[in-house]
């Protein structure tokens, strides 16, 4: 049984869906953050898989870019979460509803 591109894409879709579910269901900001990372990496997986399949380098370049951006996002996101945790002693996003219209 050979591992074809379909397997990779199915895995990526599964990982992405788990990420989406995590963001939607979990209330802890930290866990939601990890779910977002999961989604990003699912996308990276599709990039690399398709790049390998088609013999194009651009997909791998895009994956590298996503990693860099994700790293930057992690720094800022974690800083925000730490700041929120310090003032509220909680990372429950349901309590952060000041922006309600």
């Amino acid at each position, binding site marked *: 049984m050979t591992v074809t591109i379909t397997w990779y894409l199915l895995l990526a879709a599964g990982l992405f869906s788990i990420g989406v579910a995590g963001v939607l269901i979990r209330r802890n900001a930290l866990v939601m953050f990890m779910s977002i990372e999961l989604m990003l990496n699912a996308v990276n997986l599709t990039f690399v898989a398709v790049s390998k399949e088609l013999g194009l380098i651009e997909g791998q370049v895009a994956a590298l870019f996503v990693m860099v951006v994700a790293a930057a996002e992690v720094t800022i996101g974690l800083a925000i979460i730490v700041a929120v945790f310090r003032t509220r002693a909680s990372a429950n*996003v349901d309590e952060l509803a000041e922006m309600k*219209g």
Partner: protein
Amino acid sequence: MTDLLWLVIALPLAGAVINILFGKRIGEPIAGWLGFGLVAVSWLIAVPGTVAFMGGEAHAETVYLFSWIPIVGADFAILWDPLSSVMTMVVTGVGALIHLYSIGYMHGDERYPRFFAFLNLFIASMMILVLAANYAVMFIGWELVGLSSYLLISFWFTKPSAAAAGKKAFIVNRIGDWGFLVALMIIFASFGTFDFHAIFAAAPTAITVGTATAITLLLFVGATGKSAQIPLYIWLPDAMEGPTPVSALIHAATMVTAGVFMIARSAVLFEMAPVSGAVVAVVGTLTALVAALIAIAQTDIKKVLAYSTISQLGYMVLAVGVGAYTAGVFHLATHAFFKALLFLGAGSVIHAMANEQEMTKMGGLRKKMPITFITMGAAWLAISGVFPLSGFWSKDEILAATFDKGGAFLVLWVIGLLVALLTAFYMTRLFVMTFLGEPRWDDGVHPHESPYTMTIPLMVLGVFTVTAGLVNTPARLAFEHFLHPSFETIQHEMHLSDGMILALAVLALSIAIAGIAWGWRSYNVEELPAEDGPFWERALAAFGVDDFYGKVIVAPGKAASDWSAETMDPKVIDGAAHGIGHGVTAFGALLARFQGGQVRGYAGGLAVAGVLLIVVFLAVGGGF
């Protein structure tokens, strides 16, 4: 000579500004002398330019001042021709005398400097109107004199009647201005310029008789407002609420002649439209008659003079209507002298009688006020048309020109003669009731002659009243030659023989003397005759024209305004505004529900929308 002409406008304007800004600090009487001095200098500046025309060598000149709207031929430029020069002489000359008179008359008034500021503003506005070289600038002056008239009529605005009179004058004039404005629009649409030279040169070829008739009739609507003709004359009697010098300057001598001047200036257009000329002549004659009938019954000295002014303006309008522009302008000038004199004399009397204006409470002032008595006597004879005073010549010329037109115009001529009779009668009534007979003064009134600042203008005007007519007698038509360059393109040959002219003059003179004799016999008696009966009552009430306008125009207008204020504004206008506001608020509230503040809600929305997009793309088949 013409280089300095801009000062004729600028000096009074500067006086107005100075007196408005620093009047309180300058104070009485320097504020008054300043106002007088500036107008007198304006007059002096204009003298050489006018004299130059007398020799017949000087030509009409356009002095360019500065650019305003060059594309429509509307720049600030002065058109200096005999017509504008004679108007300048009258306005600044009589104006200066009335400023001088006001120094004494307004003595002790709380807002003395303000009064002179307004008077100066009036002179400046009138000069803009008179010297304009195009209709656009003329309209600026036209509106500005309306403004200064309003300011001066309601000068004593704490008196409700004065405030109301000011508003009435302004609003009635606005109706006339509407006509003027529409005429200007048609002029611009037809000629593409406002410039007098260009318009009058192009008129015979550029427009049809129909267009010319429309333009001139609308111009005449403007003239009926400013020159107090039927149907818009009703503001002028009320305007007597203003201080008497104002009545003399604006509502007798100068501003009310603006309509006549405007028609004379537009003579080329009026010549193209004989129908308009006839309308103008008929309206003028009827105005002269109606106003003379009303004047007979008035007992307020200023009211008599006000209606007399309307009546005399009717003569001038008749003159320009029959194409006798020179006669119209001539009567304008002589009337400015004797009517200003009459008003100033009346002011002097009112001043002496402690603000009493009822002639029934005067009488016997002859000995107490000799200068006023003599000068007013001259004006009385002049306006009645006694040879050889100024009014005789100018009125006679108008009547002769009307007679010369012949045909249906003979009816106007007969009415004109009748008005001359009535004029002599009511002026005699005024003069006798005021100065002759036994005193009928209220207790505690001690008449006295007025101070010299008031009597000097009376005497100067008196000299002109007596002599001004001699500049244009049938034997020596100096004034007509003088004005000729302004009406070059208009040829009106008189067909009357010398004998006929003489016969007409004798007829006019005998009518004047008959009127005076009638008035003298009726009023120079021990007991004033009882003035009752239907005619007197109706004439005293000015034939109920004001009430009629009140019922037909003012009341419906008020009702419409009330409806607007109470129904239209709160329900429809506010309703629309509030409705839009409420709608936007409600829509916003609806949208606000989507912003729950829960990050998960937003993320869920994003996810659902993403899935939907994928479904759509798959269904449509494109995209991937």
